[in-house]
Structures are given as structure tokens and as C-alpha cells.
């Protein structure tokens, strides 16, 4: 028996095979609506829930636009009604603010570049939400993420990339551990996005033509700079080159990302006439260092807070590493040393920012992830 149409047969056995009580997280978008519909069609007892993550639950009464608005909640409720499942709105705003938004701001303040979607998956969807769901008697949480769970040769549940490489979201799920994956259902991993849209249309889900969301959900206008400025204030500092020569000024080091080229507002060109990139952000002295593109090349990195989707690997191993969302995987050797993941890149890669996650893959299988702490540059250190 196949739990979810098109999903590998093993999925059913690994989830127990029978009728499950599934809590479907419904954002109001196409993907989570189709995911919930597929779970219900597979015979599970599905309940839809929309997470109110907005800091101000009053927006549910005043109809404010932005993150998790009344409109999104209505779209989710409408989809749940069409599918024919109960639907509730759960207020997780406080946990979201503490675990995702405050962390996001603190990471930028420390000169790093966080990925709030990973954080939300780890701390909200598959922690706060999952814990509450399990306590209420649910077996699993279902989301519209594009990733696959398959049963490996030893019977354990493995997280794999989606079949649609353009939509694959396994990177943002790389923070989930085996226990979290044991209660996760991803019905869309076997289907290309365009077919999901068509399916939503066929199922009469009015959200079929709703555009994908791309921006950070709690920064409704997409202006991350402005958001950070409101939270952290402005703090003038220097922009310098690799020799320490002062090239310009900025209003807050947190406004920069490693590898950034645009918006540096440096008056005079580099001596060699080549474009300059952000190489380093030092929050302590509020200094931003810029330099040539070659200096961005990273040959090795170390990462903290490792999380394993299955058993913890022993000894050094050869993997492919993805270093940011939608980044190309690169061949690496990785080893866990004193709880820290040491990664050596076979070929130097650019634009690697501390705070981002390194996710290790063995083929399509997600092995685990860790948060990049330091990078070793080839050019800068040489």
C-alpha cells in the first residue's frame, strides 16, 4: 500500500502503514494545501493548522498585511474546507519571536548571516508544533516541503532530495534529527512544482495560482536592511581594504553579507580597477573588509551545532556539501572533531558566510548539517 501517491512504497511501512493522525501545517500557499490534500486522500485522519507567527495577533482582527496575515489564514482555511478537514489557527508567535526573529537579529549583530527558515523548521515546525501535536495524540506533522523520506536498507528513515531539483528544499530540513524525521511527512517530494500547481487546480484549491513566497516571512516588505536598522540602530563604522586602508563608511556592519558586491558605496575604484567584495565583517570593531573576488575563495571551514538526520558519521568521510539555499553541491571531506565539523573543500568555493548552514549529502541522502563558524580563505590567508 502506498501512503502518498507516487511516494516510495517504504514510506508507508516506516510510518506504520496504517491510518495515521496527521497534523498538516497550512501556510495558505499552494504546496501545503496540496500536501494536506494528498495526506487526506491517502486515508489519513488529517487536521489542518495555520501557525500564527506574527508578533501582533491583532493583525488577525485588523487584516494587516505581511507575515501570516489574516489573508493567508483565510486561504488556508478555505483550502481545508475544500479538502474537508478540520482547521485551526495556533498562536506560536511568542516562540517564533524568541527562537527565530530574536536569533536572526542576534546573528546579524554578531556579523553572521543566518537562515531563519532552517531555524523555523528546527525550532517551530518540528519542535514547538510537533511536540504539541504529539501530546495531542497526532502521529506526524505534514508540510509542503519538497523533500523525500524513504526507508533505508537498515530500516531507518532517511531524508532525501526532492525529484524536482529546482524546488528541492532538503537544505532547509537538514537540521532535523532522526526523532523529528520519524514524525515528519513530506507528500510533495516526488512531484515537480508545476504538477503540484496543476493538481491544486484540479482539486479546486483556490490557492493554485497564488505566487510562491520567497522573502523572509517576518520581513513583509523584503527590506532586511531596514528591519535590522530598526532593531539594531545605526552605528557608523569603517570600510577598509585588506591592508587596513580606509575606503569608506557604513552605518552598521550588520548590513553586510560576505560576498556582497553591490551597495558598498565606496567612492574611488580599486587600484587594479576590479570590483570589490565584502570579505569580512567584524562586529567588535564594527569594521567591514573588502577585497578582490579571489579573496572570497574558501578552502576549508569549521561548523558548530552539528545535527544528524540519521546516525552520527564516524571518522572522516567524502560527501557533497551545500553551503547555502539553492547553492550547488560541492565535493568535500568532512570529519567531526571535538563536536565541531571540519570540512575541506575539494575545490575552493566563494560566498560562504558564517551563520549559514553546511548541509552534507551522500548522493541524494541528507546526512546532517552544522552552522558555519569560521572559514579558511586561500588567498586572504596566503
Amino acid at each position, binding site marked *: 500500500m502506498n501512503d502518498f501517491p507516487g511516494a516510495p512504497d517504504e514510506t508507508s511501512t516506516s510510518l506504520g502503514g496504517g491510518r495515521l493522525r496527521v497534523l498538516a501545517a497550512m501556510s495558505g500557499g499552494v504546496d501545503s494545501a496540496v500536501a494536506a490534500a494528498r495526506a487526506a486522500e491517502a486515508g489519513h485522519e488529517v487536521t489542518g493548522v495555520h501557525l500564527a507567527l506574527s508578533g501582533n495577533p491583532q493583525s488577525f482582527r485588523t487584516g494587516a498585511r505581511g507575515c501570516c496575515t489574516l489573508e493567508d*489564514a483565510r486561504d488556508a482555511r478555505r483550502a481545508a474546507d475544500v479538502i474537508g478537514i478540520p482547521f485551526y489557527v*495556533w498562536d506560536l508567535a511568542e516562540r517564533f519571536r524568541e527562537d527565530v526573529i530574536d536569533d536572526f537579529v542576534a546573528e546579524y549583530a554578531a556579523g553572521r548571516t543566518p537562515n531563519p527558515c532552517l531555524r523555523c523548521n528546527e525550532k517551530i515546525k518540528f519542535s*514547538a508544533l510537533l*511536540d*504539541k501535536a504529539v501530546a*495531542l*495524540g497526532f502521529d506526524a506533522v505534514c508540510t509542503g516541503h519538497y523533500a523525500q523520506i524513504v526507508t533505508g536498507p537498515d530500516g531507518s528513515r532517511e531524508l532525501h532530495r526532492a525529484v524536482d531539483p529546482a524546488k528541492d528544499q532538503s537544505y532547509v530540513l537538514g537540521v532535523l534529527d532522526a526523532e523529528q524525521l520519524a514524525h515528519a511527512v513530506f507528500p510533495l517530494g516526488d512531484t515537480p512544482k508545476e504538477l503540484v500547481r496543476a493538481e491544486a487546480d484540479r482539486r479546486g484549491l483556490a490557492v493554485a495560482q497564488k505566487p510562491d513566497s520567497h522573502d523572509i516571512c517576518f520581513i513583509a516588505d523584503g527590506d532586511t536592511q531596514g528591519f535590522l536598522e530598526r532593531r539594531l540602530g545605526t552605528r557608523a563604522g569603517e570600510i577598509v581594504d585588506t591592508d587596513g586602508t580606509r575606503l569608506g563608511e557604513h552605518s552598521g556592519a550588520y548590513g553586510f553579507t560576505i560576498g556582497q558586491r553591490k551597495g558598498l558605496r565606496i567612492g574611488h575604484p580599486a587600484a587594479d580597477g576590479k570590483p570589490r567584495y565584502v570579505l569580512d565583517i567584524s562586529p567588535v570593531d564594527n569594521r567591514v573588509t573588502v577585497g578582490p573576488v579571489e579573496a572570497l575563495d574558501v578552502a576549508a571551514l569549521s561548523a558548530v551545532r552539528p545535527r544528524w538526520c540519521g546516525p552520527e558519521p564516524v571518522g572522516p568521510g567524502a560527501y557533497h556539501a551545500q553551503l547555502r539555499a539553492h547553492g550547488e553541491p560541492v565535493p568535500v571531506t568532512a570529519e567531526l572533531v571535538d563536536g565541531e565539523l571540519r570540512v575541506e573543500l575539494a575545490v575552493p568555493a566563494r560566498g560562504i558566510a558564517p551563520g549559514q548552514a553546511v548541509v552534507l549529502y551522500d548522493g541524494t541522502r541528507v546526512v546532517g548539517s552544522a552552522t558555519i563558524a569560521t572559514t579558511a580563505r586561500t588567498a586572504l590567508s596566503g
Partner: protein
Amino acid sequence: MPYLDHAATTPMLPEAVLAMSAHLGSTGNASSLHAAGRRARRVIEESRETLALALGARPSEVVLTGGGTESDNLAVKGLYWARRDADPARVRILCSPVEHHAVLDAVEWLERHEGARIDWLPVDGYGRVHPEALRAAIARNPADVALVTVMWANNEVGTVQPVRELAAVARESGIPMHADAVQAFGQLPLSFADSGLDALTVTGHKIGGPYGIGALVLSRSAAPVPLLHGGGQERDVRSGTLDVPAAAGFAAAAEIAVRRQPGYAPAVAALRDSLVAGVLAAVPDAVLNGDPGPGADRRLPASAHFSFPGCEGDALLMLLDARGIECSTGSACSAGVPQPSHVLLAMGVEPAAARASLRFSLGHTSTEGDVAALLAAIGPVVERARMAGAASTRR
């Protein structure tokens, strides 16, 4: 399917369905002069007379509206504007903090946009306003009060207000008083003439009538500024083509609800009492909110409201829903993101306990089987919700 949410809406009485459907196929604007118009007008006026009789009012005092929310808005805003226009000093509104949002939000809107000042009347732990509290609030400056608005009975906890005493206090100073009687109508004996009120809100769908129609009973001396301007229907207070089938359905339901009330109230109260006793036996630390009664002058006969310590109301609701038992965390209007009820907060209930609350409201179709189904489920459901409550505070 045990339906324990009659305070949100109750099934239509078959007689109301018949009365309403008898007119759905007829043409006629009650304002027209020709025969079709006269036929429609006759139905409207007969319905008005039936409603007036049921409400202890004169037919000319019954203004048909689009429902309880509209009646509340018309009373609160309309009377405020009229009183202020007559004397610009009269901008103070005396209001209980346990009102339905249709009054609460209207009053707060007047404060934000129309220069009103709100004096919240203090309530006791049952949510009751005492006449002395109203007297003291008026005495602070009788000349600047625009109106008093206190509901007849609370929609969440069921506490009945001493409306007649309050209206008498307001009348001493010549101040008009409005009461939202949406929940009281059909459950308590209700006479506009005896109440001493100037305005009274009722609605159709809470008494077995149709949705989308209500009435504001309005003393003939009260002339609120209208919310809706147009053809001048309903004493020029509420313009709009009259809904003939809905008026007929509303009147049929009102006539039956009032005629049956003397027998219905004690019967439903007995059923409610068995529900309360059963819930407290199954969950010994559950807290009954509102006036515990007995007596229909203290508590609505069909309503029961509890806090279940350690639970989230939305979790309880979901677990009961999954077992086919339909109830509510409060008034249906605040359904969405769970917020602690303003009624419970005003009564001095802690926010955590306020969020841990459920309302069970019975009605004309309720049976012992409905109560038995709830009592069989409530113990395990509360236990399960407590585990979830503990899980959501764990980090």
C-alpha cells in the same frame, strides 16, 4: 452529533422555516403602493406586531435591522450622536467591560473617532454590574453622560444583569440606556415596557429564527441618528428594503420561543445543571465561571462556562471536535487566534485560566444524550490537553 454551541447559533424552528419559505416566492416591496407592495407590507406589519407582543413592546417601537451587531451599533452610535448633537457636553458613555464586541468595539470606535469618553462600569467576580456602581459613575457628572449600555445577560459566562434596577438608576438622571438582550431573549422573561430601557437589541438566529435579521426595540422618545441613510424605512432610523420572508420567520420563532419559555427554561436549566455536575465530577479542579445560580435572575438557564487549569482552550476545542462534540472557547466572533476573553479578564480571572476556558451552551434541540456524550469525553480530553499544555511550555 452533540451540538453544545447554541449560544453561537441555534437550529431554526420548523415553524420558522415554514413561515419564511411561504414568502420566498412572493414579490413585493413593502414600500410600494400597489397590491404586491401592500401584501408585503401586511406581512411585515403582522410580523412586527407579533414581535412587539413577544417583547412586551408596542409595534411602533420595533425597528427591524440586519441582526444583533447592527442593532447594537445603531443603539450605541445612534444614541451617542443624537445626545451629543443636542448637548455637546454629553460625551461620556457608561459601559460594562463584559459587553459583546458589537457593543465594545462600537463604543471604542466612538472614543477614537467621535470624541467619546468611556467610563467602564466595574463588575464583580461573576461579571455583574451593581446599580450602586452605575449610580456612582453617573454622580461624577450627570450632565455629561450620553448613554448607558449594559447587556441583559452575558454571552460567554451567562451572568444575568439587574437590568431593571440599572435602567431605573439611569432614568433618575434622564439618561437613555441600551441593553443587548441577544442571549436573554427566549431564555428569560423579557418585557421592554417593564424594563425601563430606551433601547433593546434582539436577533433572530439565537431563538430559532433566520440569520440576518434582528430588531432594535426603541422607545418612541429615542431618536438615534441612523447608520444607514436611504429610503426612510423603519421610522427613518433604518433605511433599506424590508426582508419580508426573514421578518415572517423571525416573528414565528419569537412567538414560539416566548410562548414556550416558561416550560423550556426550567427544563434546559435541569439539563445544564446535570452537565455542570457531571463536568465537575469528571474534572474536579475545573472552575465554573459566572454566577453559579440557581435562579434565572442570576444565570442564563442554558449556559455553562468552565476553566480547565493547565489546558489551552483551543486544544480542548480541537480534541472535543475530533470526538464530534461541538462547543466554543467563548464568543464565536473571537474565533481565530485564541485570545483570553475580555469578559473573564474583566471578572478578574488570570490570563492563563482565561485561555483555558470552554463554553457549553444548550438549546431547544439539546438532549440528555448530548450531555452524556460530553461527560464521557471530557475527562480524557482534559487529561490529553494538559499533556499538550505541558509540552508547549517545555523547551
